[in-house]
């Protein structure tokens, strides 16, 4: 029996370790990803608090994807209060969400995962080896962070989003300036696409169900009424209430299954489920890749390349959204909020997959129930199952190489342990 232990997997959001027991035959006896973070009890501390504190507190579940947490909290409470937000609010929220996906993916691709495909262990050396690509990655991040700051007031933990809309609307001139810098950023995205198109991805496949939001008209990201899992479509409420089980027996992380089975959200799921709706440039890249891949789209290592495609897609989306915004008069930041008893379930696409947020409030606007199901909580089972299948094929390698390969697969998932352990 061999024990493989990685006490701390670096270069992921949050902190986690890996532990496995493998028999001489290569059979995996036991395998776990364990969180090294304490439980902050975000849902628990929100009970009894005022509705407007929910986005402030729950947004701080995660420092890399606060936007989607804030936005989902606002939407869930808006559903509870039966508030319909304005068109301007929807457009601005979509830009924020797109920017969040762009900046998170770029950080993950270049600064977390890329080194796994070379002999480099440190990002400063990585920048030295890929100077042009590093410049491109930083330029893309600067653009999306600027968009977040212009609309959200701050890059991390933005302050303007609230139940009903925004505290303040962005300056039209700032949006125009952002639009002007778009062409260079588009070129930078192509640099990243070329880098990730040509990586030597391991061949790996284990059948699983892919989960994403579903829309008949667009590549889904902001809100959704339906989900698509495997080949089944169903309403958000049905999926959340009847089809998934939250395993709460192993705190501090909840692990979610779909009808008893692991499943996979994230860039790979969105692309597999919705690639028809990619924007033109992103779609072209995808179709070229599809031709070369021999039709096997479900290799989990492709999650990296799909993130690169999504960067391009969401940049194209951002350009369109800003153009739409500039056609309109930026007025009326928020709808009036009338407090009433009620509940709401909201789902949006976070960088790592579909985020579900459920909030119930009483007649005074205080929280009665709250539940947040993060993408990482949904894919941890799938990651462990993948590792169980992947491990026997690499047991003969020297320990150091084995560890490197395990870390690489874990990082392909882009796990966010802060989200999973909230």
């Amino acid at each position, binding site marked *: 029996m061999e024990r493989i232990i990685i006490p701390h997997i670096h270069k992921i*959001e949050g902190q986690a370790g890996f532990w496995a027991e493998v028999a001489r035959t290569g059979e995996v006896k036991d395998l776990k990803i364990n969180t090294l973070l304490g439980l902050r009890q975000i849902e628990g501390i929100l009970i009894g608090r005022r509705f407007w504190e929910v986005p402030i507190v729950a947004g701080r579940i995660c*420092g890399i994807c606060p936007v989607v947490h804030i936005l989902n909290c606002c939407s869930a409470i808006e559903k509870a209060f039966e508030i319909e937000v304005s068109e301007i609010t929807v457009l601005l929220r979509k830009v924020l969400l797109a920017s969040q996906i762009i900046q998170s993916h770029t950080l993950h691709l270049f600064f977390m995962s890329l080194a796994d495909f070379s002999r480099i262990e440190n990002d400063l050396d990585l920048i030295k080896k890929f100077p042009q690509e590093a410049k491109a990655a930083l330029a893309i991040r600067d653009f999306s962070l600027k968009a977040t700051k212009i609309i959200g007031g701050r890059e991390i933990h933005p302050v303007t989003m609230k139940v009903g809309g925004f505290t303040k609307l962005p300056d039209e001139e700032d949006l125009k300036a952002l639009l002007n810098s778009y062409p260079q950023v588009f070129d930078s995205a192509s640099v990243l696409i070329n880098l990730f198109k040509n990586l030597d991805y391991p061949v790996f496949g284990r059948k699983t169900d892919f989960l994403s939001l579903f829309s008949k008209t667009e590549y889904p990201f902001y809100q959704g009424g339906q989900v698509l899992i495997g080949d089944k479509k169903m309403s958000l409420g049905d999926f959340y209430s009847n089809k998934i089980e939250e395993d709460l027996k192993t705190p501090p992380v909840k692990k979610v299954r779909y009808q008893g089975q692991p499943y996979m959200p994230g860039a790979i799921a969105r692309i597999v489920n919705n690639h028809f709706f990619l924007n033109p440039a992103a779609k072209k890249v995808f179709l070229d890749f599809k031709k070369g891949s021999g039709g096997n789209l479900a290799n989990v290592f492709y999650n990296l390349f799909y993130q690169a495609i999504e960067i391009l897609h969401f940049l194209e989306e951002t350009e369109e959204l800003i153009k739409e915004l500039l056609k309109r008069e930026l007025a009326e930041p928020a709808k009036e909020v009338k407090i009433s008893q009620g509940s709401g379930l909201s789902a949006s696409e976070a960088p790592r997959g579909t985020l579900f947020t459920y909030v119930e409030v009483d007649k005074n606007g205080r929280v009665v129930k709250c539940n947040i199901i993060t993408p990482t909580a949904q894919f941890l089972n799938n990651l462990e199952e993948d590792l169980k299948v992947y491990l026997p094929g690499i047991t003969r390698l020297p320990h150091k190489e084995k560890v490197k390969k395990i*870390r690489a697969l874990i990082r392909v998932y882009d796990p966010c342990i802060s989200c999973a352990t909230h």
Partner: protein
Amino acid sequence: MANKPKVGIFSLTACEGCQFVLLDLGERFFNFLRKTELIDFPLIEDAPFPKKIQIDIAFVEGTPITKKNVSLLKKIRKESKIVVAIGNCAALGGINKIKNYQDKEKTVRYLYKKTGAIENPEIKGLDKFVNVDLIIPGCPINGEEFLAIAEELIQGKIPQIEQKPVCRECPHRGKESCFLRKQEPCLGTITLGGCQAVCPASDFPCYGCRGTLKNINPTGFLATLKKMKPGREFEESLEVFGIKDDLQKYL
């Protein structure tokens, strides 16, 4: 290499947003790192924390919640000349600290029924565990402020953040649009500035995430704010970023 100051950047339990503030500085942050010998920064490199090494400056983000968090913090203190707490979680306990004002046994049972394995301590800032040399406050920290302070630190100085209120940087200062003039509670008057009043500038009142100014007596100010919102509501607002403990004696 030998003469470069040795720097470590660590995280306990947190959203890690303060570390992302650093990465969001882009090229400027990497230029700063090039002036140092980076001993450990798990977010961007794979090498494990060395068993024994003298660190000149350790930046620590997050709240110690698990026993392992606490032992890592103590190890960092032992190995480092200067320990800098970065962000509201490290300084005051952060949003995690709301739990302290509730029945924490009840709060933990809200989600998990089997709570045996959950570590559920009272939430406290780093300085309640180890000696902290400097605090860079905020939720999250301000990147510009971090860079300015970090540059001084690697030159061997320990700078102090000027004790001036958030109002000093606020675009609504002295105007009709000031929250206080609109009879809406805003803590900018008693909160340590340096954030460019980022929240009020976005038409969102200050909730004091950078902590309270030293050497002030806010009794009168707090009494004025209490009149704007009923007692319980006002005190709840002081709980969001963990400043209630420091203000309790003035309430």
